[in-house]
């Protein structure tokens, strides 16, 4: 047996093993909890919010929506805990003064890392989502879908 034959055969093998088609992740992604704002008068009419911030319990700003109008929020609940508090601080102008109104949303949930495939690895999903909230400017928070496994769903409705 000649050396070039070995090399040729070995090269063929290496080429074969480097062009496998499971290198791309296409159909899966981690899931965000979608919070969608609705009107308190009519629970099925979307009602956007402007001039508000998301704060954590320490009062630090998670996300600021001062100059934007928001119809929905995609939220990541921390996966190393099973409960998360989020303050929605809304700014309203009363007689030329800015007034902040806070509502605290408490989420309880079970985070999950689900193995999908070699190329995708793990995606983030949640089960058993529930919510308790204060009601200052928000009138009600409704969990529509407690099993969070698709980004196409409206998981939580916030009525205000």
């Amino acid at each position, binding site marked *: 047996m000649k050396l070039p034959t070995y090399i040729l055969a070995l090269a063929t093998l290496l080429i074969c093993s480097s062009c496998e088609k499971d290198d791309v992740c296409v159909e899966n*992604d981690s899931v*965000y909890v979608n919070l969608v704002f609705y009107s308190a008068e009519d629970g099925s009419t979307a009602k956007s919010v402007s001039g508000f911030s998301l704060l954590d319990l320490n009062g630090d700003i998670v996300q600021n929506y001062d100059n934007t109008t928001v119809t929905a929020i995609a939220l990541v609940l921390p996966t190393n805990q099973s409960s998360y508090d989020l303050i929605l601080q809304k700014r309203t102008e009363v007689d030329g003064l800015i007034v902040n109104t806070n509502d605290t949303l408490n989420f309880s949930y079970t985070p999950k*890392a689900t193995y999908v495939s070699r190329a995708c690895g793990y995606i983030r999903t949640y089960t058993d989502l529930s919510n308790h909230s204060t009601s200052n400017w928000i009138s009600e928070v409704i969990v529509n879908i407690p099993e969070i496994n698709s980004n196409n769903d409206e998981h939580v409705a916030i009525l205000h």
Partner: protein
Amino acid sequence: MMISASVSIYAQKEYGIRAGIDLSKLVRSELQEGYTGFEIFGDLTFRNKTKIAVEIGSESFDTKESIDQSLLYSYKVSGEFLKLGLDWEIYQRKPGEKNQITAGARYVVSSFDTSQGIINFYDTAWVERYGEFPNYSVEGPTHNGLSASYLEGVLGFKTHLTKQLYLGGSFRMGFLVSQKEPENFDNLWIPGFNRVTDGARFGFSYNYGLSYYLPVKKTR
């Protein structure tokens, strides 16, 4: 006619035992980060040009999956394998020639442990924003007592070096028969089998090593 027939019979009357060590796994252990491997092999020529062949080895592979430099997850597989089967010489040797080409088949059992390292979430929106995937766990679970069995087709070559020493290798295509998979993970790499492709049962591997052959010739 008579002469050629008797030569043929004489050439087929060869018995012998071989033992060798896979050098490719030793070289790969040195060159490839995260890989260590060792394999010894042997065969027994028992009838005509048929051999009972065996390979015993141990392999460990510490690796990771990333997308464009962004780490997804890492894992380490360590375990042993035992390959047992038959080889047939498919190349008609010239008188006095000792090189050989063989085709063979093996049944392989492999047992191994997988320990998972970092687990990040595949999250396209997050990686676009922050340049890396969000972390779930710094040290994932360990799965002990995993196993796999597979069939292997083997094409082997051996070149006679000097006296009883041979240098040769083989290319192998494995076909997974059964496996015990870890919970919420996959067997992505199996000792002796090499990389496991999603949705496919085939795997490719090779060996290349030095062997000592002790012939026991019988003349009728």
